[in-house]
């Protein structure tokens, strides 16, 4: 079951990655990133269960905190982007390249 949960984590991570690559809308990209982070958290939980230690969950909590911070900044960026380009297309932002 733990192995299966790790496989589930892999599948979710891969799906998140696919989402990041597939979608051009930044909101969707952010959502896909959430999926990837969540998959990573799942992997930690599974590993914690495997060793019967609390560390896995601790790590999950850290990931949670990180995801929260990331979403806050990311969504602020989405708003800024939308105000600036009047579009949510991530490729539009390629004009920012220096």
């Amino acid at each position: 079951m733990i192995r299966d949960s790790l496989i589930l984590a892999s599948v979710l991570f891969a799906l998140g990655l696919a989402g990041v690559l597939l979608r051009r809308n930044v909101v969707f990209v952010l959502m896909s990133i959430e999926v990837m982070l969540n998959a990573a958290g799942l992997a930690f939980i599974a590993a914690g269960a495997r060793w019967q230690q609390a560390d896995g969950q601790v790590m999950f909590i850290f990931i949670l905190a990180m995801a929260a911070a990331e979403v806050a900044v990311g969504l602020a960026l989405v708003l800024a982007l939308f105000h600036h380009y009047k579009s949510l297309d991530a490729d539009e932002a390629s004009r920012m390249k220096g």
Partner: protein
Amino acid sequence: MHVVFYISAAIAVAATLLMLRQLNAVHALIYLVISLLAVAVVFYTLGAPFAAALEVIIYAGAIMVLFVFVVMLLNLGQAAIRFERKLLGKGSWICPAVLAAILIAELTWLLIEGVGPMYPPMTIGPVEVGAALFGPYMIGVELASMLLLAGLVGAYHIGRRERSGPEPADVSEEAHK
């Protein structure tokens, strides 16, 4: 328990897949929430009730609410869905799908080949987690708090700067009057 695990795993994967192909952001969000809730159940079956609770409260609750707020702020209507359809070109899914498939294959291969003997899951409650969190991981907690603070400040800063453009400035001046 096993049955619950597999059912919720299947739901998580399916919900994520559906999320990926949604054009409407709010619909996608709902699928995402479903996926997260399913994963919470998986956590529970893995003997991590505390993590499951956090997943529901913070992820599916707080963070997703943030998303909903933003989507509403952006006020995307039917036009956004048409635009989204345009963005999602015909063949655009091929490359991500191939990459994702390879990734899944590689990781699965690793897991099937390399994982040693498995112990049955054992419930680890909030007590142990709390003891670990504020014991050896104290520094991590401090760092996380700083990260959150930084995220707060950063989000505020980025949002504020956009609003201090010329037009909003006029608005605020008028508001003062």
